[in-house]
């Protein structure tokens, strides 16, 4: 087929005179927009405002799901902060939230401080369980395990900190000793519990803490604390 023929045939595709007239009439008779009406934004501005509408739908769905998971995950982590052994979110606290915070401490001193805080947290959790009369053997064993772990890590980080700056880790050790002593005294007070089983568990935990205090105390610190 020659170009001219093709062009002639294509040019036959057009509006009928009636259609042409109708369109023109509708356009010319359309109401004039009010100068006070909000201005229609240009296409590029509309796209910039609602850019997400231009995304392919599968990608949009994935993005929304990820966002929900992220927000949900953050909310769950936050809610887990106050959980104690036996709670559903406790494992989230121990295995997710706290490990994430572990990674945010970069120096031996900050890591030691964080491990000390974790050890104290374990004992606080025990205290909360005692208040609810729910310190079972299973919970106590779990708390002790995590407490001991944190104490060992604390000692390790303190040694590292002492290598860098001689004597600068002393304040950490002193503060930790004091905190452990306070916790041990608190457990001693709570030892006089009506429930014998509960009393047994508290006693056991208090002994663990006192052992750690003995192991941890150095002559230097004892002298400082006048123990």
């Amino acid at each position, binding site marked *: *087929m020659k170009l001219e023929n*093709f062009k002639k*045939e*294509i040019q036959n595709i057009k*509006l009928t005179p009636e259609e042409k007239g109708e*369109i023109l009439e509708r356009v010319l008779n359309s*109401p*004039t*927009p009010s100068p006070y009406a909000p201005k229609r934004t240009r*296409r590029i501005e509309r796209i910039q405002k609602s850019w997400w509408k231009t995304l392919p739908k599968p990608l949009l769905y994935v993005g929304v799901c990820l966002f929900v998971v992220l927000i949900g995950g953050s909310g769950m982590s936050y809610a887990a902060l106050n959980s104690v052994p036996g709670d559903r979110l406790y494992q989230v606290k121990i295995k997710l939230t706290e490990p994430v915070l572990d990674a945010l401490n970069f120096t031996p001193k900050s890591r030691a401080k964080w491990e000390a805080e974790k050890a104290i947290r374990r004992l606080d959790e025990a205290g909360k369980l005692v208040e609810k009369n729910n310190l079972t053997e299973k919970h106590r064993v779990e708390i002790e395990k995590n407490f001991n772990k944190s104490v060992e890590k604390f000692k390790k980080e303190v040694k590292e900190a002492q290598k860098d700056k001689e004597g600068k880790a002393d304040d950490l050790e002193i503060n930790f000793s004091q905190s452990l002593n306070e916790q041990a005294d608190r457990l001693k007070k709570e030892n006089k519990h009506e429930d014998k089983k509960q009393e047994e568990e508290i006693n056991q935990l208090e002994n663990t803490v006192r052992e750690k205090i003995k192991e941890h105390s150095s002559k230097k610190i004892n002298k400082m604390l006048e123990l």
Partner: protein
Amino acid sequence: MEVPNIKIKEKFEGVYEKEADALFRYCVLRVSNRNQAIDIIQDVFLELWRAYQKGEEIKNDRAYLFTMLRNRIIDWYRKKKSSSLDAMMENPRENINFEPIDEKAHLEIYSSAETRRIMEAIETLPGDYRDAVYLKVAEDLSPPEIASILNSNTNIISIRITRGIQKLKKKLNIEEFL
């Protein structure tokens, strides 16, 4: 209500008479539905009319109209695609084509099989080449005119036209096309 200036109206009518058929052709070959094409070009001319009424300066009416038209067609495709996907998700087993089959609307666009074949071949060209080749062979526009419509450079358009037609000849096995 403000009475439109008669000169503006005359100017608009002149542009309308000159460009309406070309725009309609371009549109109906893209959307394959006469009524839909009429709706789209009505919107496009309405935009132009409003622009004239506001006193906006439009350097090239043809380029302005084609640009508006191409944007409208893209919007139409997107809307059609999303509503098809939504319909598929809601009723996967049902027929998703909700448009009633109107024989008049679906009149055979092409008068001959050969024309249809050539247009289908043009449609298969890469996007950059397709519009340039179509505007050249169907509307007989010059490269500078096509460049202003497609918002491109005259040299680039010339190259696209040449290469596009070569591809077309190869697809159709036509030596004497151009």
